[in-house]
């Protein structure tokens, strides 16, 4: 018999978009890069706990405690400037769990190590699906769709020039190039920007792939 994870619900992209809009209105307006550290600590009043060697000892970069007391994060990832773009996404992902999965988190009660491990194993698939939804929340929050489209639209001339200079250049390569250009503006890695460009179908909307 399959037991359903209590409180399990997969938000659609559109539902997440609405929640992100509300979140943005409450905490960060249209400021980019989104000041995610300040939002978490100063506005949401969630503690961030940088833990020494957490990643090297356990393979875990970050997590939010189920009673929402804090976000635990590997100290090196939290502190090193070189990791900042990656860590900003990770922190926003944890906020995603807080916003999307709060009712589920509140229902959890572990009474022993074995109890906890059993839960992780039993609901591995569901947890992975919820991880994906938290990623979607982080992506939409840190890379607002209209702002991203606007930035790419501003670079339309440049894109068309590259296409003229390099006939046959792939659309993917152009997306990657724009991701590099825009990563600093959003304070994220190229990879995250690329994911948003693809997911939001910005190039297709602006007819840049023809």
């Amino acid at each position, binding site marked *: 018999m399959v037991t359903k994870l209590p409180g399990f619900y997969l938000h659609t992209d559109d539902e997440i978009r609405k929640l992100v809009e509300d979140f943005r209105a409450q905490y960060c307006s249209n400021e980019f890069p989104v000041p995610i550290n300040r939002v978490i600590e100063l506005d949401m009043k969630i503690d961030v706990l940088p833990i020494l060697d957490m990643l090297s000892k356990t*393979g875990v970069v970050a*997590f939010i405690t189920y009673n929402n*007391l804090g976000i635990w994060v590997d100290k090196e990832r939290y502190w090193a400037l070189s990791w900042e773009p990656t860590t900003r996404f990770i922190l926003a992902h944890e906020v995603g769990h807080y916003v999307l999965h709060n009712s589920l988190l509140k229902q959890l009660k572990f009474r022993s190590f074995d109890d*906890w491990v059993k839960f992780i194993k039993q609901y591995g698939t569901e947890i992975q699906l919820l991880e994906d939804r938290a990623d979607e929340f982080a992506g939409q929050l840190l890379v607002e769709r209209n702002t991203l489209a606007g930035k790419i639209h501003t670079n339309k001339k440049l894109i068309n020039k590259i296409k003229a200079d390099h006939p046959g250049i792939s659309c993917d390569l152009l997306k990657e190039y724009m991701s590099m250009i825009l990563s600093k503006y959003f304070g994220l890695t190229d990879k995250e920007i690329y994911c948003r460009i693809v997911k939001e179908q910005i190039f297709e909307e602006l007819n840049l792939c023809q």
Partner: protein
Amino acid sequence: MKNFGQMVREERLKKRLTLREFCRKASFDPSYWSRIERGLAQPPKTKVAMLQIADALGLESVSEEYLSLKDIAFLENSPTELAPERSVYDNLPAFFKTARGQAPSEDELRKLFELIKSESDGKE
């Protein structure tokens, strides 16, 4: 009565400084400082460190806030007595962001459990 860590944390939040910003200003390790704020480690003992705190928080060295902090830092000398009673089970996560994008193994979960335990009760 508030302990040293709680007092500094309140002052830091009042000044709208994140942990990271505060630690950069004061040149403190954020992991160490987080433990102090949670009452899991002793306050700094040196005058230099106390002045770094004052500077980062924008407190005058003759201000009432700074002198109170200094007094409490002096009084607190036992990290275990300061540690709040927080059950390890309250801190166990259901979701994990791992470096390789897969759920942790049972061995990694055991190590994580031990780590959370040490960070929850202050014992290494």
